[in-house]
């Protein structure tokens, strides 16, 4: 009962925040009914997907302070599980998605157990390495389509197919991912106030102190890493049905892992709204910049420069990102 109450309890935020959140939520619900371009719709779906990746990253990376730069490997596991099962055995999304999550979580235990013996930069580097190794394996593994990847051909199905998540119109995908988005927020809202959430924040503060308070630091990190993995793998499965054409090169790339971490850090690592703010800034920036640069081929790569500038600004100005700046201003006003 108490857990259920905590899921819906946002009372520690000031009223102004809740008003803003309510308005954003309302906008997200009615967005497809407003006049919009298909490009805007695609951008919104990307925004919701990346918010979810960021929320997952934020549990271990934000609350726990364990910078993970290998999230794309779990996205790949989710996406390929769903694609392989659908194409080979006609298994619907709602069955293959939990199986993908189970496989991804299992993999996260296997690599998390040794990796969490490492700390700080060594951990971040090790997550990059495992992600790249898994990508290389997928690129030569014929069963999952090797480097050519897999294609889900919509002709074989009769959309709208709610079991297999095959639709012609993006609006279906939009509302499904929006549902996951709201569930994700509720879950993280519970997580941040749970015992595990507090333990993670204590670990980020000081690991020795955390241990002396009875916290099994290694196990708490592994558990939270599994939670983060479940988020990413779930959206990975969705990604396969939505994009329909997946290759290891674009579902498991290092760019993607870094973008996930960067978004959460820009918005505010270790805060509920941070990853959503980060995705809300970076995803439109990324897709409109790409569209605009498409006409000016000589400027390709400028988005990477912008990312680099953002990283420098975060580390120099406020390590806790945009949300950190907001909180700082509030504290100053109160004092």
């Amino acid at each position: 009962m108490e857990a259920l109450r905590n899921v819906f309890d946002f009372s520690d935020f000031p009223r102004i925040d809740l008003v803003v959140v309510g308005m954003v939520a309302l906008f997200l619900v009615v967005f497809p009914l407003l006049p919009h371009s298909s490009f805007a719709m695609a951008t919104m779906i990307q925004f919701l997907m990346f918010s979810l990746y960021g929320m997952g990253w934020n549990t271990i990376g934000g609350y726990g302070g364990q910078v993970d730069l290998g999230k794309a490997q779990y996205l790949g596991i989710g996406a390929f599980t769903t694609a392989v099962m659908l194409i080979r055995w006609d298994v619907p999304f709602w069955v293959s998605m939990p199986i993908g999550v189970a496989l991804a979580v299992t993999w996260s235990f296997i690599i998390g157990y040794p990796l969490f013996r490492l700390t700080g930069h060594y951990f971040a580097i090790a997550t990059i390495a495992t992600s790249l190794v898994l990508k290389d394996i997928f690129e030569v593994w014929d069963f999952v389509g090797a480097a050519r990847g897999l294609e889900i051909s919509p002709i074989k199905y009769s959309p709208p197919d709610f079991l297999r998540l095959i639709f012609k119109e993006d609006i279906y995908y939009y509302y499904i991912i929006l549902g996951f988005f709201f569930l994700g927020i509720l879950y993280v809202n519970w997580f941040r106030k749970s015992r595990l959430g507090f333990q993670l924040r204590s670990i980020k503060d000081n690991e020795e102190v955390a241990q002396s308070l009875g916290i099994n630091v290694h196990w708490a990190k592994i558990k939270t890493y599994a939670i983060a993995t479940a988020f990413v793998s779930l959206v990975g499965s969705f990604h396969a049905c939505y994009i329909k054409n997946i290759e290891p090169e674009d579902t498991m790339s290092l760019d993607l892992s870094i973008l996930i971490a960067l978004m959460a850090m820009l918005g505010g690592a270790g805060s509920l709204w941070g990853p959503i703010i980060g995705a809300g800034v970076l995803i439109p920036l990324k897709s409109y910049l790409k569209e605009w640069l498409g006409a000016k081929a000589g400027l390709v790569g400028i988005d990477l420069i912008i990312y680099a500038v953002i990283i420098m600004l975060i580390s120099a100005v406020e390590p806790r990102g945009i949300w950190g700046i907001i909180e700082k201003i509030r504290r100053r006003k109160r004092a």
Partner: protein
Amino acid sequence: MALLEVHNLTKDFGGLRANDNISFSLDQGELLGLIGPNGAGKTTLFNCVSGLHPVTSGRIIFAGEDITRLKAHETARRGLARTFQVYVASGDLSVEENVMVGCFMQTRSPAQARARAKEILTDLKLNDLSDYLVSELPASAQKRVTMATALGSDPKLLLLDEVAAGLNPSEIEEIMAIIKHVHDDLGVTVMLIEHVMELVMKVSDRVIVLDYGQKIAEGEPATVAKDPMVIKAYLGERYVREHAEELK
């Protein structure tokens, strides 16, 4: 009844012997002081007892159970809490949240942990500071918060590592009152490392003195203070020779 027994504890760091064959025991309800010059091995002894460092040899018995090989989180769950000399907080947690982390050892429920944290903070007269970040507080308040956090886990034995270091005389009075309150009223057995002599000598039932990793004296505060070995450890051999008359 002995709550904590340490038998022939030795700890080596490479070639350095930080604790050399130390034995002592601590009774339920006692308040034991641990003193010694810098580098004597006091904090190392705490780290070994609480399971943060593996011991090189020796045995540690806590509440009748051999805890020699247990890790820090396992000893904590058996009722052995501690504070740290240098407290580094990244500043994410407020005072109340910090104490809640301790309380979460006894309960899964956030509401119960919060209620217990409020109780402890009120008891230690820290309730005005509940919403501040630990990193915003002055050293004296931080030390009290670390004690409150350790108490949150509802310990049988509390190891305090230099809670009075760097404090001014009135703050020392305050912390002394808290230590007495925790020991006398809450019934927690306490072992404390301290350089502030007026505090150790006043509150301790018994004092152990370490020097170069070895136990050189043990007994009541007044007796230990007159022990030539102890005076030598603190003030040097020449002082003992030159003041031989006064020391008798």
